[in-house]
Protein backbone atom coordinates (compact mmCIF):
# COMPACT_ATOMS: atom_id res chain seq x y z
CA UNK A 1 0.00 0.00 0.00
CA UNK A 2 2.76 2.35 1.00
CA UNK A 3 4.70 1.34 -2.07
CA UNK A 4 1.73 2.11 -4.28
CA UNK A 5 1.34 5.51 -2.69
CA UNK A 6 4.99 6.33 -3.34
CA UNK A 7 4.67 5.16 -6.94
CA UNK A 8 1.63 7.33 -7.43
CA UNK A 9 3.36 10.26 -5.79
CA UNK A 10 6.36 9.95 -8.09
CA UNK A 11 4.30 9.54 -11.23
CA UNK A 12 1.74 12.20 -10.30
CA UNK A 13 3.31 15.09 -12.26
CA UNK A 14 3.57 12.95 -15.38
CA UNK A 15 0.07 11.57 -15.02
CA UNK A 16 -1.34 15.02 -14.40
CA UNK A 17 0.38 16.38 -17.49
CA UNK A 18 -0.88 13.44 -19.52
CA UNK A 19 -4.43 13.93 -18.28
CA UNK A 20 -4.57 17.70 -18.73
CA UNK A 21 -2.53 17.90 -21.90
CA UNK A 22 -3.69 14.80 -23.72
CA UNK A 23 -6.48 12.67 -22.30
CA UNK A 24 -8.99 15.43 -21.62
CA UNK A 25 -8.54 17.33 -24.91
CA UNK A 26 -8.52 14.10 -26.92
CA UNK A 27 -11.67 12.89 -25.16
CA UNK A 28 -13.41 16.21 -25.79
CA UNK A 29 -12.60 15.99 -29.49
CA UNK A 30 -13.73 12.37 -29.77
CA UNK A 31 -16.97 13.07 -27.92
CA UNK A 32 -17.70 15.83 -30.44
CA UNK A 33 -17.91 13.12 -33.08
CA UNK A 34 -20.83 11.36 -31.42
CA UNK A 35 -22.81 14.44 -30.43
CA UNK A 36 -25.01 16.69 -32.49
CA UNK A 37 -25.06 20.49 -32.34
CA UNK A 38 -27.35 20.42 -29.28
CA UNK A 39 -25.19 17.95 -27.38
CA UNK A 40 -27.40 14.88 -27.78
CA UNK A 41 -25.77 11.55 -28.57
CA UNK A 42 -25.90 10.63 -32.24
CA UNK A 43 -24.17 8.39 -34.72
CA UNK A 44 -25.12 10.53 -37.69
CA UNK A 45 -21.57 11.78 -38.29
CA UNK A 46 -20.08 8.30 -38.21
CA UNK A 47 -22.82 7.03 -40.51
CA UNK A 48 -22.16 9.93 -42.87
CA UNK A 49 -18.53 8.87 -43.11
CA UNK A 50 -19.18 5.16 -43.46
CA UNK A 51 -21.89 5.51 -46.11
CA UNK A 52 -20.14 8.01 -48.37
CA UNK A 53 -17.86 6.47 -50.96
CA UNK A 54 -15.82 9.68 -51.07
CA UNK A 55 -14.81 9.40 -47.41
CA UNK A 56 -14.33 5.66 -47.62
CA UNK A 57 -12.03 6.37 -50.54
CA UNK A 58 -10.03 8.75 -48.38
CA UNK A 59 -9.77 6.10 -45.65
CA UNK A 60 -8.67 3.52 -48.20
CA UNK A 61 -6.01 5.85 -49.63
CA UNK A 62 -4.72 6.47 -46.10
CA UNK A 63 -4.46 2.75 -45.36
CA UNK A 64 -2.99 1.93 -48.76
CA UNK A 65 -0.30 4.63 -48.62
CA UNK A 66 0.56 3.85 -45.00
CA UNK A 67 0.99 0.16 -45.82
CA UNK A 68 3.18 0.98 -48.79
CA UNK A 69 5.29 3.42 -46.76
CA UNK A 70 5.66 0.85 -43.98
CA UNK A 71 6.62 -1.90 -46.44
CA UNK A 72 9.29 0.25 -48.07
CA UNK A 73 10.69 1.21 -44.66
CA UNK A 74 10.84 -2.47 -43.59
CA UNK A 75 12.52 -3.65 -46.78
CA UNK A 76 15.08 -0.84 -46.76
CA UNK A 77 15.45 -0.53 -43.01
CA UNK A 78 16.04 -4.13 -41.94
CA UNK A 79 19.31 -4.70 -43.84
CA UNK A 80 20.56 -1.29 -42.80
CA UNK A 81 19.77 -1.96 -39.15
CA UNK A 82 21.58 -5.31 -39.40
CA UNK A 83 24.68 -3.71 -40.87
CA UNK A 84 24.57 -1.04 -38.17
CA UNK A 85 24.27 -3.66 -35.45
CA UNK A 86 27.05 -5.87 -36.76
CA UNK A 87 29.42 -3.14 -37.96
CA UNK A 88 32.13 -1.68 -35.75
CA UNK A 89 31.22 0.96 -33.15
CA UNK A 90 32.67 3.73 -35.32
CA UNK A 91 30.64 2.74 -38.40
CA UNK A 92 27.54 2.40 -36.24
CA UNK A 93 28.03 5.84 -34.79
CA UNK A 94 28.33 7.41 -38.23
CA UNK A 95 25.33 5.55 -39.59
CA UNK A 96 23.25 6.57 -36.58
CA UNK A 97 24.31 10.18 -37.13
CA UNK A 98 23.34 9.89 -40.81
CA UNK A 99 19.96 8.41 -39.93
CA UNK A 100 19.06 10.82 -37.17
CA UNK A 101 20.49 14.00 -38.65
CA UNK A 102 17.42 14.64 -40.85
CA UNK A 103 15.31 14.55 -37.67
CA UNK A 104 17.03 17.77 -36.62
CA UNK A 105 15.39 19.62 -39.52
CA UNK A 106 11.73 20.51 -39.42
CA UNK A 107 9.44 18.21 -41.38
CA UNK A 108 8.00 21.20 -43.19
CA UNK A 109 11.41 22.28 -44.42
CA UNK A 110 12.21 18.77 -45.63
CA UNK A 111 8.87 18.61 -47.37
CA UNK A 112 9.61 21.89 -49.14
CA UNK A 113 12.86 20.29 -50.24
CA UNK A 114 10.89 17.45 -51.83
CA UNK A 115 8.66 19.98 -53.54
CA UNK A 116 11.72 21.45 -55.24
CA UNK A 117 13.15 18.05 -56.14
CA UNK A 118 9.89 16.60 -57.48
CA UNK A 119 8.28 19.70 -59.01
CA UNK A 120 8.34 20.80 -62.61
CA UNK A 121 11.95 21.50 -63.61
CA UNK A 122 13.17 19.81 -60.42
CA UNK A 123 15.93 17.24 -60.15
CA UNK A 124 13.87 14.08 -60.65
CA UNK A 125 11.62 15.24 -63.53
CA UNK A 126 14.67 16.78 -65.23
CA UNK A 127 16.62 13.56 -64.98
CA UNK A 128 13.66 11.60 -66.37
CA UNK A 129 13.34 14.11 -69.20
CA UNK A 130 17.04 13.74 -70.06
CA UNK A 131 16.54 10.01 -70.28
CA UNK A 132 13.74 10.71 -72.72
CA UNK A 133 11.12 9.07 -70.52
CA UNK A 134 8.83 12.07 -69.98
CA UNK A 135 7.91 15.35 -71.61
CA UNK A 136 8.93 18.85 -70.62
CA UNK A 137 6.05 19.61 -68.31
CA UNK A 138 6.29 16.39 -66.36
CA UNK A 139 6.00 16.79 -62.61
CA UNK A 140 5.88 14.34 -59.75
CA UNK A 141 4.20 16.86 -57.48
CA UNK A 142 0.64 16.10 -56.48
CA UNK A 143 1.03 12.37 -57.01
CA UNK A 144 0.87 9.47 -54.57
CA UNK A 145 4.49 8.76 -55.49
CA UNK A 146 5.44 12.14 -54.05
CA UNK A 147 3.57 11.42 -50.82
CA UNK A 148 5.29 8.04 -50.44
CA UNK A 149 8.74 9.45 -51.16
CA UNK A 150 8.34 12.30 -48.70
CA UNK A 151 6.86 10.14 -45.98
CA UNK A 152 9.45 7.37 -46.28
CA UNK A 153 12.17 9.94 -45.82
CA UNK A 154 10.47 11.35 -42.74
CA UNK A 155 9.66 8.02 -41.10
CA UNK A 156 12.63 5.87 -42.11
CA UNK A 157 14.69 6.69 -38.97
CA UNK A 158 11.90 5.44 -36.70
CA UNK A 159 11.94 2.07 -38.43
CA UNK A 160 15.72 1.70 -38.47
CA UNK A 161 16.16 2.67 -34.84
CA UNK A 162 13.38 0.31 -33.70
CA UNK A 163 14.93 -2.64 -35.52
CA UNK A 164 18.46 -1.69 -34.50
CA UNK A 165 17.58 -1.86 -30.82
CA UNK A 166 16.38 -5.45 -31.19
CA UNK A 167 19.07 -6.72 -33.57
CA UNK A 168 21.81 -5.37 -31.31
CA UNK A 169 20.55 -7.56 -28.51
CA UNK A 170 20.64 -10.74 -30.62
CA UNK A 171 23.59 -12.78 -29.42
CA UNK A 172 26.03 -12.95 -32.34
CA UNK A 173 27.07 -16.41 -31.14
CA UNK A 174 23.69 -17.68 -32.38
CA UNK A 175 24.67 -16.69 -35.90
CA UNK A 176 28.10 -18.26 -35.46
CA UNK A 177 26.42 -21.45 -34.29
CA UNK A 178 24.14 -21.43 -37.33
CA UNK A 179 27.11 -21.02 -39.64
CA UNK A 180 28.98 -23.84 -37.87
CA UNK A 181 25.93 -26.05 -38.32
CA UNK A 182 26.13 -25.50 -42.07
CA UNK A 183 23.95 -22.48 -42.78
CA UNK A 184 25.08 -20.12 -45.48
CA UNK A 185 25.26 -16.44 -44.53
CA UNK A 186 21.85 -15.72 -46.09
CA UNK A 187 20.33 -18.80 -44.46
CA UNK A 188 21.58 -17.68 -41.07
CA UNK A 189 19.93 -14.32 -41.67
CA UNK A 190 16.65 -15.87 -42.74
CA UNK A 191 16.49 -18.64 -40.14
CA UNK A 192 18.09 -16.98 -37.14
CA UNK A 193 18.33 -13.20 -37.32
CA UNK A 194 15.08 -12.40 -39.03
CA UNK A 195 12.82 -14.41 -36.67
CA UNK A 196 14.57 -12.88 -33.66
CA UNK A 197 14.28 -9.38 -35.16
CA UNK A 198 10.50 -9.69 -35.62
CA UNK A 199 9.61 -7.74 -32.47
CA UNK A 200 11.71 -4.83 -33.70
CA UNK A 201 10.22 -4.99 -37.18
CA UNK A 202 6.69 -5.16 -35.79
CA UNK A 203 7.32 -2.28 -33.38
CA UNK A 204 8.90 -0.19 -36.13
CA UNK A 205 6.09 -1.02 -38.57
CA UNK A 206 3.48 -0.07 -36.04
CA UNK A 207 5.24 3.21 -35.33
CA UNK A 208 5.65 4.03 -39.02
CA UNK A 209 2.11 2.96 -39.91
CA UNK A 210 0.42 4.96 -37.18
CA UNK A 211 2.57 8.01 -37.83
CA UNK A 212 1.95 7.92 -41.56
CA UNK A 213 -1.77 7.36 -41.07
CA UNK A 214 -1.97 10.45 -38.90
CA UNK A 215 0.52 12.70 -40.71
CA UNK A 216 -1.04 15.56 -42.53
CA UNK A 217 1.50 18.20 -43.41
CA UNK A 218 3.60 16.11 -45.81
CA UNK A 219 0.66 14.49 -47.69
CA UNK A 220 -1.03 17.87 -47.83
CA UNK A 221 1.92 19.67 -49.37
CA UNK A 222 3.15 16.90 -51.66
CA UNK A 223 -0.20 15.41 -52.58
CA UNK A 224 -2.18 18.61 -52.93
CA UNK A 225 -5.89 18.96 -52.43
CA UNK A 226 -6.77 16.38 -55.06
CA UNK A 227 -5.28 13.51 -53.03
CA UNK A 228 -6.80 13.91 -49.57
CA UNK A 229 -5.85 11.50 -46.77
CA UNK A 230 -7.73 11.07 -43.52
CA UNK A 231 -5.58 13.42 -41.44
CA UNK A 232 -5.74 16.22 -43.99
CA UNK A 233 -9.47 15.67 -44.33
CA UNK A 234 -9.85 16.08 -40.56
CA UNK A 235 -7.80 19.25 -40.69
CA UNK A 236 -9.83 20.67 -43.56
CA UNK A 237 -13.14 19.77 -41.96
CA UNK A 238 -12.12 21.35 -38.66
CA UNK A 239 -10.59 24.55 -40.00
CA UNK A 240 -12.11 25.18 -43.42
CA UNK A 241 -15.71 24.13 -43.10
CA UNK A 242 -15.70 24.43 -39.29
CA UNK A 243 -17.67 21.20 -38.97
CA UNK A 244 -16.08 20.05 -35.71
CA UNK A 245 -18.57 17.26 -35.13
CA UNK A 246 -17.70 15.61 -38.41
CA UNK A 247 -14.00 16.22 -37.82
CA UNK A 248 -14.42 14.49 -34.45
CA UNK A 249 -16.15 11.57 -36.15
CA UNK A 250 -13.28 11.21 -38.61
CA UNK A 251 -10.85 11.25 -35.66
CA UNK A 252 -12.79 8.41 -34.07
CA UNK A 253 -12.49 6.38 -37.27
CA UNK A 254 -8.74 7.04 -37.45
CA UNK A 255 -8.28 6.18 -33.77
CA UNK A 256 -10.26 2.96 -34.05
CA UNK A 257 -8.22 1.97 -37.09
CA UNK A 258 -4.97 2.52 -35.24
CA UNK A 259 -6.22 0.78 -32.08
CA UNK A 260 -7.21 -2.27 -34.08
CA UNK A 261 -3.69 -2.38 -35.41
CA UNK A 262 -2.30 -2.16 -31.87
CA UNK A 263 -4.32 -5.22 -30.90
CA UNK A 264 -2.99 -7.15 -33.88
CA UNK A 265 0.52 -6.11 -32.96
CA UNK A 266 0.10 -7.24 -29.37
CA UNK A 267 -1.08 -10.64 -30.67
CA UNK A 268 1.80 -10.88 -33.16
CA UNK A 269 4.55 -10.10 -30.70
CA UNK A 270 3.25 -12.20 -27.81
CA UNK A 271 5.15 -15.37 -28.81
CA UNK A 272 8.32 -13.33 -29.18
CA UNK A 273 7.94 -12.03 -25.66
CA UNK A 274 8.10 -15.63 -24.55
Amino acid at each position, binding site marked *: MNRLRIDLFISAPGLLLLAVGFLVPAAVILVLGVRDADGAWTSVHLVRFLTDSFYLGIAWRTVKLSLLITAICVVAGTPLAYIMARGGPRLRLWLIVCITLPLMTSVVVRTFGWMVVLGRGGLVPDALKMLGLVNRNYTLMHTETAIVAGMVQVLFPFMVLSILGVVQRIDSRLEEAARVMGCSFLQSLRLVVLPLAVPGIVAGSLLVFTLSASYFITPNLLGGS*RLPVLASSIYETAT*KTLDWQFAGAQSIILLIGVLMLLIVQAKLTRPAHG
Partner: protein
Amino acid sequence: MKKIVRAAAMATLLAATTSVFAQQTLVVNSWGGPYEKLHKELVFEPFEKANNVKIKVVTLYSADTLAQLRAQKANPQYDVVHFSGGQEVIAAREGLLSPIKPAELSHGKDLYPFATEGMARGEGPVHLVTAVGLLFNEKKVTKGPTSWKDVWDSAYGDHLVLTDLSNSFGLLGFLMMNQVWGGSIENTKPGLKKVGELLNRSVIINSSPEVQQNFAQNDAWLAPFSQDYAYIIRKSGQPVKFVMAKEGTPAVYFTANLVANRPNQALAKKLIDFELSPEVQAAFAREMRYSPTNRKTQLTPDVASEVVYGDAVRSLVRFDPVAIDKIRNGLIEDWKKLIAK
Protein backbone atom coordinates in the same frame (compact mmCIF):
# COMPACT_ATOMS: atom_id res chain seq x y z
CA MET B 1 17.88 49.85 8.82
CA LYS B 2 19.17 52.41 6.37
CA LYS B 3 19.95 49.64 3.97
CA ILE B 4 16.42 48.33 4.17
CA VAL B 5 14.97 51.77 3.52
CA ARG B 6 17.27 52.25 0.58
CA ALA B 7 16.39 48.87 -0.84
CA ALA B 8 12.69 49.56 -0.39
CA ALA B 9 13.11 52.89 -2.13
CA MET B 10 14.93 51.20 -5.01
CA ALA B 11 12.23 48.62 -5.30
CA THR B 12 9.47 51.21 -5.41
CA LEU B 13 11.39 53.17 -8.01
CA LEU B 14 11.88 50.07 -10.06
CA ALA B 15 8.24 49.14 -9.82
CA ALA B 16 7.23 52.68 -10.80
CA THR B 17 9.49 52.73 -13.86
CA THR B 18 8.38 49.33 -15.04
CA SER B 19 4.74 50.31 -14.78
CA VAL B 20 5.46 53.42 -16.84
CA PHE B 21 7.12 51.31 -19.48
CA ALA B 22 4.66 48.42 -19.26
CA GLN B 23 3.31 48.22 -22.75
CA GLN B 24 -0.17 47.26 -23.71
CA THR B 25 -0.42 44.44 -26.21
CA LEU B 26 -2.85 43.99 -29.07
CA VAL B 27 -3.25 40.63 -30.75
CA VAL B 28 -4.32 40.70 -34.40
CA ASN B 29 -4.35 38.35 -37.38
CA SER B 30 -2.94 38.86 -40.83
CA TRP B 31 -2.82 36.56 -43.85
CA GLY B 32 0.84 35.86 -44.40
CA GLY B 33 2.90 36.30 -47.55
CA PRO B 34 3.50 39.69 -49.13
CA TYR B 35 0.24 41.04 -47.72
CA GLU B 36 1.28 40.46 -44.11
CA LYS B 37 4.67 42.01 -44.77
CA LEU B 38 2.97 45.13 -46.05
CA HIS B 39 0.39 45.05 -43.28
CA LYS B 40 3.20 45.14 -40.70
CA GLU B 41 5.14 47.83 -42.49
CA LEU B 42 2.23 50.19 -43.15
CA VAL B 43 -0.01 49.60 -40.15
CA PHE B 44 1.38 47.64 -37.24
CA GLU B 45 4.89 49.07 -36.95
CA PRO B 46 3.90 52.76 -37.27
CA PHE B 47 1.00 52.19 -34.86
CA GLU B 48 3.29 50.51 -32.32
CA LYS B 49 5.65 53.48 -32.40
CA ALA B 50 2.97 56.13 -32.23
CA ASN B 51 1.03 54.52 -29.38
CA ASN B 52 3.71 52.73 -27.38
CA VAL B 53 1.91 49.43 -27.82
CA LYS B 54 3.08 45.97 -28.79
CA ILE B 55 1.18 44.29 -31.62
CA LYS B 56 1.34 40.54 -31.81
CA VAL B 57 0.55 39.37 -35.34
CA VAL B 58 -0.75 35.85 -35.85
CA THR B 59 -0.71 34.51 -39.41
CA LEU B 60 -4.13 33.04 -39.96
CA TYR B 61 -6.53 32.99 -42.90
CA SER B 62 -10.06 34.30 -42.51
CA ALA B 63 -11.81 30.93 -42.19
CA ASP B 64 -9.27 29.71 -39.63
CA THR B 65 -9.58 32.97 -37.71
CA LEU B 66 -13.33 32.53 -37.48
CA ALA B 67 -12.78 28.98 -36.25
CA GLN B 68 -10.46 30.22 -33.53
CA LEU B 69 -12.81 33.03 -32.51
CA ARG B 70 -15.58 30.50 -32.09
CA ALA B 71 -13.38 28.18 -30.07
CA GLN B 72 -12.23 31.06 -27.86
CA LYS B 73 -15.69 32.51 -27.39
CA ALA B 74 -15.47 32.34 -23.58
CA ASN B 75 -11.96 33.71 -23.49
CA PRO B 76 -11.05 35.51 -26.72
CA GLN B 77 -7.37 35.95 -27.53
CA TYR B 78 -7.55 38.45 -30.40
CA ASP B 79 -8.24 42.17 -30.23
CA VAL B 80 -8.68 42.94 -33.91
CA VAL B 81 -9.43 40.34 -36.57
CA HIS B 82 -9.26 40.83 -40.32
CA PHE B 83 -11.53 38.92 -42.67
CA SER B 84 -11.60 38.72 -46.45
CA GLY B 85 -14.26 36.10 -47.06
CA GLY B 86 -17.31 37.71 -45.51
CA GLN B 87 -16.72 35.91 -42.18
CA GLU B 88 -17.48 39.17 -40.33
CA VAL B 89 -21.16 38.67 -41.13
CA ILE B 90 -21.17 35.31 -39.36
CA ALA B 91 -18.94 36.45 -36.51
CA ALA B 92 -21.17 39.46 -35.84
CA ARG B 93 -24.28 37.31 -35.92
CA GLU B 94 -22.74 34.93 -33.38
CA GLY B 95 -21.85 37.79 -31.05
CA LEU B 96 -18.10 37.34 -31.44
CA LEU B 97 -17.58 40.97 -32.45
CA SER B 98 -18.29 44.27 -30.74
CA PRO B 99 -20.25 46.67 -32.93
CA ILE B 100 -18.58 49.98 -33.76
CA LYS B 101 -20.50 53.07 -34.82
CA PRO B 102 -18.96 55.08 -37.67
CA ALA B 103 -19.08 58.11 -35.38
CA GLU B 104 -16.69 56.41 -32.96
CA LEU B 105 -13.97 56.42 -35.62
CA SER B 106 -12.32 59.64 -36.70
CA HIS B 107 -12.39 58.48 -40.32
CA GLY B 108 -15.89 57.05 -40.11
CA LYS B 109 -17.53 59.97 -41.86
CA ASP B 110 -15.08 59.85 -44.78
CA LEU B 111 -15.79 56.27 -45.74
CA TYR B 112 -17.77 55.35 -48.84
CA PRO B 113 -21.22 54.01 -47.95
CA PHE B 114 -20.34 50.43 -48.99
CA ALA B 115 -17.57 50.43 -46.37
CA THR B 116 -19.87 51.22 -43.46
CA GLU B 117 -22.93 49.21 -44.55
CA GLY B 118 -22.07 46.23 -42.39
CA MET B 119 -21.39 48.31 -39.29
CA ALA B 120 -25.12 48.55 -38.64
CA ARG B 121 -25.10 44.73 -38.40
CA GLY B 122 -22.27 44.84 -35.87
CA GLU B 123 -19.44 44.16 -38.31
CA GLY B 124 -16.23 46.13 -38.64
CA PRO B 125 -15.64 48.63 -41.45
CA VAL B 126 -14.26 47.65 -44.85
CA HIS B 127 -10.72 49.01 -45.04
CA LEU B 128 -9.54 47.67 -48.38
CA VAL B 129 -11.08 46.11 -51.44
CA THR B 130 -9.57 43.88 -54.05
CA ALA B 131 -11.14 42.28 -57.09
CA VAL B 132 -11.11 38.75 -58.48
CA GLY B 133 -10.46 38.52 -62.20
CA LEU B 134 -8.23 36.64 -64.61
CA LEU B 135 -4.44 36.61 -64.41
CA PHE B 136 -2.60 35.61 -67.56
CA ASN B 137 0.96 35.36 -68.78
CA GLU B 138 1.24 37.88 -71.59
CA LYS B 139 4.42 36.33 -72.98
CA LYS B 140 2.85 32.90 -73.41
CA VAL B 141 -0.65 33.92 -74.41
CA THR B 142 -1.05 36.08 -77.47
CA LYS B 143 -4.72 36.82 -76.97
CA GLY B 144 -5.58 37.70 -73.41
CA PRO B 145 -8.86 36.47 -71.93
CA THR B 146 -11.85 38.81 -71.97
CA SER B 147 -14.54 36.52 -70.58
CA TRP B 148 -14.77 34.08 -67.68
CA LYS B 149 -15.69 31.50 -70.32
CA ASP B 150 -12.24 31.93 -71.86
CA VAL B 151 -10.90 29.78 -69.02
CA TRP B 152 -12.39 26.88 -70.99
CA ASP B 153 -10.48 27.88 -74.15
CA SER B 154 -8.31 24.92 -75.10
CA ALA B 155 -5.58 27.35 -76.20
CA TYR B 156 -4.45 27.50 -72.58
CA GLY B 157 -3.69 23.79 -72.64
CA ASP B 158 -2.68 22.37 -69.28
CA HIS B 159 -1.38 25.67 -67.98
CA LEU B 160 -4.38 26.53 -65.82
CA VAL B 161 -4.26 27.27 -62.12
CA LEU B 162 -7.45 26.89 -60.09
CA THR B 163 -7.79 27.80 -56.44
CA ASP B 164 -9.38 25.60 -53.81
CA LEU B 165 -12.75 26.83 -52.60
CA SER B 166 -11.58 26.97 -48.99
CA ASN B 167 -9.67 30.09 -50.08
CA SER B 168 -11.79 33.28 -50.27
CA PHE B 169 -10.45 34.20 -53.70
CA GLY B 170 -11.04 30.66 -54.97
CA LEU B 171 -14.61 30.68 -53.71
CA LEU B 172 -15.49 34.02 -55.30
CA GLY B 173 -13.84 33.10 -58.59
CA PHE B 174 -15.80 29.87 -58.62
CA LEU B 175 -19.11 31.60 -57.84
CA MET B 176 -18.49 33.96 -60.73
CA MET B 177 -17.74 31.12 -63.16
CA ASN B 178 -20.79 29.30 -61.87
CA GLN B 179 -22.91 32.40 -62.53
CA VAL B 180 -21.52 32.75 -66.03
CA TRP B 181 -22.55 29.18 -66.82
CA GLY B 182 -26.08 29.77 -65.56
CA GLY B 183 -25.79 28.92 -61.88
CA SER B 184 -26.51 30.93 -58.76
CA ILE B 185 -25.39 30.82 -55.14
CA GLU B 186 -28.23 28.39 -54.45
CA ASN B 187 -27.49 26.28 -57.52
CA THR B 188 -23.79 25.54 -57.96
CA LYS B 189 -24.25 22.47 -60.15
CA PRO B 190 -23.52 24.25 -63.47
CA GLY B 191 -20.25 25.65 -62.14
CA LEU B 192 -19.11 22.35 -60.62
CA LYS B 193 -19.94 20.52 -63.84
CA LYS B 194 -18.02 23.01 -65.99
CA VAL B 195 -15.00 23.23 -63.65
CA GLY B 196 -14.93 19.44 -63.63
CA GLU B 197 -14.05 19.62 -67.33
CA LEU B 198 -10.92 21.63 -66.46
CA LEU B 199 -9.46 19.36 -63.80
CA ASN B 200 -7.21 17.33 -66.04
CA ARG B 201 -5.45 20.38 -67.32
CA SER B 202 -5.16 22.39 -64.11
CA VAL B 203 -3.09 22.64 -61.00
CA ILE B 204 -5.19 23.25 -57.89
CA ILE B 205 -3.65 25.44 -55.24
CA ASN B 206 -4.66 26.02 -51.62
CA SER B 207 -2.88 29.16 -50.51
CA SER B 208 -2.45 32.53 -52.12
CA PRO B 209 1.37 32.58 -52.42
CA GLU B 210 1.18 29.39 -54.51
CA VAL B 211 -0.29 31.33 -57.41
CA GLN B 212 2.92 33.33 -57.69
CA GLN B 213 4.98 30.17 -57.46
CA ASN B 214 2.97 28.61 -60.29
CA PHE B 215 3.56 31.56 -62.62
CA ALA B 216 7.25 31.67 -61.69
CA GLN B 217 8.12 27.97 -61.75
CA ASN B 218 5.31 25.85 -63.11
CA ASP B 219 4.66 27.54 -66.43
CA ALA B 220 1.16 28.77 -65.55
CA TRP B 221 -0.63 30.78 -68.23
CA LEU B 222 -4.03 31.53 -66.79
CA ALA B 223 -5.45 31.73 -63.29
CA PRO B 224 -8.64 33.21 -61.93
CA PHE B 225 -7.28 35.13 -58.96
CA SER B 226 -7.09 38.51 -57.28
CA GLN B 227 -5.79 41.87 -58.39
CA ASP B 228 -3.44 42.38 -55.43
CA TYR B 229 -1.51 39.19 -56.14
CA ALA B 230 -1.48 39.99 -59.87
CA TYR B 231 0.38 43.18 -59.03
CA ILE B 232 2.80 41.41 -56.66
CA ILE B 233 3.60 38.80 -59.30
CA ARG B 234 4.13 41.45 -61.93
CA LYS B 235 6.37 43.42 -59.60
CA SER B 236 8.47 40.29 -59.04
CA GLY B 237 9.25 40.28 -62.75
CA GLN B 238 6.72 37.83 -64.16
CA PRO B 239 4.85 39.02 -67.28
CA VAL B 240 1.48 38.62 -65.61
CA LYS B 241 -1.50 40.85 -66.35
CA PHE B 242 -4.83 41.26 -64.58
CA VAL B 243 -8.04 41.34 -66.61
CA MET B 244 -11.54 42.18 -65.51
CA ALA B 245 -13.75 39.85 -67.48
CA LYS B 246 -16.75 41.35 -69.26
CA GLU B 247 -19.34 39.43 -67.23
CA GLY B 248 -18.27 41.13 -64.01
CA THR B 249 -15.61 41.17 -61.34
CA PRO B 250 -16.31 39.91 -57.82
CA ALA B 251 -15.22 42.24 -55.05
CA VAL B 252 -13.34 41.04 -51.99
CA TYR B 253 -13.91 43.26 -48.99
CA PHE B 254 -11.23 43.29 -46.31
CA THR B 255 -12.77 44.16 -42.97
CA ALA B 256 -11.16 45.09 -39.66
CA ASN B 257 -13.27 43.89 -36.76
CA LEU B 258 -13.31 44.55 -33.04
CA VAL B 259 -13.41 41.34 -31.01
CA ALA B 260 -15.95 41.28 -28.19
CA ASN B 261 -15.02 40.88 -24.51
CA ARG B 262 -11.45 42.12 -24.75
CA PRO B 263 -9.90 44.60 -22.30
CA ASN B 264 -8.18 46.96 -24.74
CA GLN B 265 -11.07 47.87 -26.99
CA ALA B 266 -10.33 51.60 -27.07
CA LEU B 267 -6.84 50.96 -28.35
CA ALA B 268 -8.08 48.28 -30.74
CA LYS B 269 -10.59 50.76 -32.15
CA LYS B 270 -7.79 53.21 -32.63
CA LEU B 271 -5.90 50.60 -34.66
CA ILE B 272 -8.95 49.99 -36.86
CA ASP B 273 -9.32 53.74 -37.29
CA PHE B 274 -5.66 53.95 -38.30
CA GLU B 275 -6.23 51.34 -41.02
CA LEU B 276 -8.94 53.59 -42.42
CA SER B 277 -6.73 56.66 -42.66
CA PRO B 278 -6.15 58.09 -46.16
CA GLU B 279 -2.36 57.82 -45.82
CA VAL B 280 -2.39 54.11 -44.97
CA GLN B 281 -4.93 53.36 -47.69
CA ALA B 282 -2.95 55.33 -50.28
CA ALA B 283 0.13 53.31 -49.38
CA PHE B 284 -1.79 50.03 -49.73
CA ALA B 285 -3.01 51.15 -53.15
CA ARG B 286 0.51 52.11 -54.17
CA GLU B 287 2.17 48.91 -52.94
CA MET B 288 -0.39 46.24 -53.81
CA ARG B 289 -3.14 48.00 -55.77
CA TYR B 290 -5.87 47.81 -53.15
CA SER B 291 -8.92 49.99 -53.61
CA PRO B 292 -9.28 52.51 -50.79
CA THR B 293 -12.52 52.88 -48.87
CA ASN B 294 -11.82 56.37 -47.52
CA ARG B 295 -12.91 58.99 -50.01
CA LYS B 296 -10.15 61.38 -48.88
CA THR B 297 -7.49 58.96 -50.11
CA GLN B 298 -5.31 60.60 -52.75
CA LEU B 299 -3.93 58.28 -55.42
CA THR B 300 -1.25 59.23 -57.91
CA PRO B 301 -2.52 58.97 -61.52
CA ASP B 302 -0.56 55.81 -62.36
CA VAL B 303 -1.98 54.04 -59.30
CA ALA B 304 -5.48 55.40 -59.87
CA SER B 305 -5.49 54.02 -63.41
CA GLU B 306 -4.85 50.52 -62.08
CA VAL B 307 -7.33 50.25 -59.23
CA VAL B 308 -11.08 50.28 -59.07
CA TYR B 309 -11.60 53.53 -57.32
CA GLY B 310 -14.27 55.34 -55.41
CA ASP B 311 -17.91 54.68 -56.14
CA ALA B 312 -16.85 52.47 -59.04
CA VAL B 313 -16.30 49.81 -56.37
CA ARG B 314 -20.09 49.56 -56.42
CA SER B 315 -19.89 48.23 -59.98
CA LEU B 316 -18.04 45.15 -58.74
CA VAL B 317 -20.08 42.01 -58.19
CA ARG B 318 -20.84 41.51 -54.52
CA PHE B 319 -22.00 38.02 -53.59
CA ASP B 320 -24.13 38.04 -50.45
CA PRO B 321 -21.95 36.73 -47.59
CA VAL B 322 -24.98 35.45 -45.67
CA ALA B 323 -26.17 33.45 -48.66
CA ILE B 324 -22.62 32.15 -49.23
CA ASP B 325 -22.33 31.10 -45.60
CA LYS B 326 -25.50 29.01 -45.93
CA ILE B 327 -24.17 26.96 -48.85
CA ARG B 328 -20.45 27.15 -48.12
CA ASN B 329 -19.91 23.85 -46.31
CA GLY B 330 -22.01 21.85 -48.72
CA LEU B 331 -20.32 23.48 -51.69
CA ILE B 332 -16.84 22.82 -50.33
CA GLU B 333 -17.73 19.17 -49.78
CA ASP B 334 -19.12 18.87 -53.32
CA TRP B 335 -15.95 20.53 -54.58
CA LYS B 336 -13.68 18.17 -52.63
CA LYS B 337 -15.56 15.21 -54.06
CA LEU B 338 -15.28 16.70 -57.53
CA ILE B 339 -11.52 17.23 -57.44
CA ALA B 340 -10.46 14.09 -55.55
CA LYS B 341 -8.76 11.56 -57.77
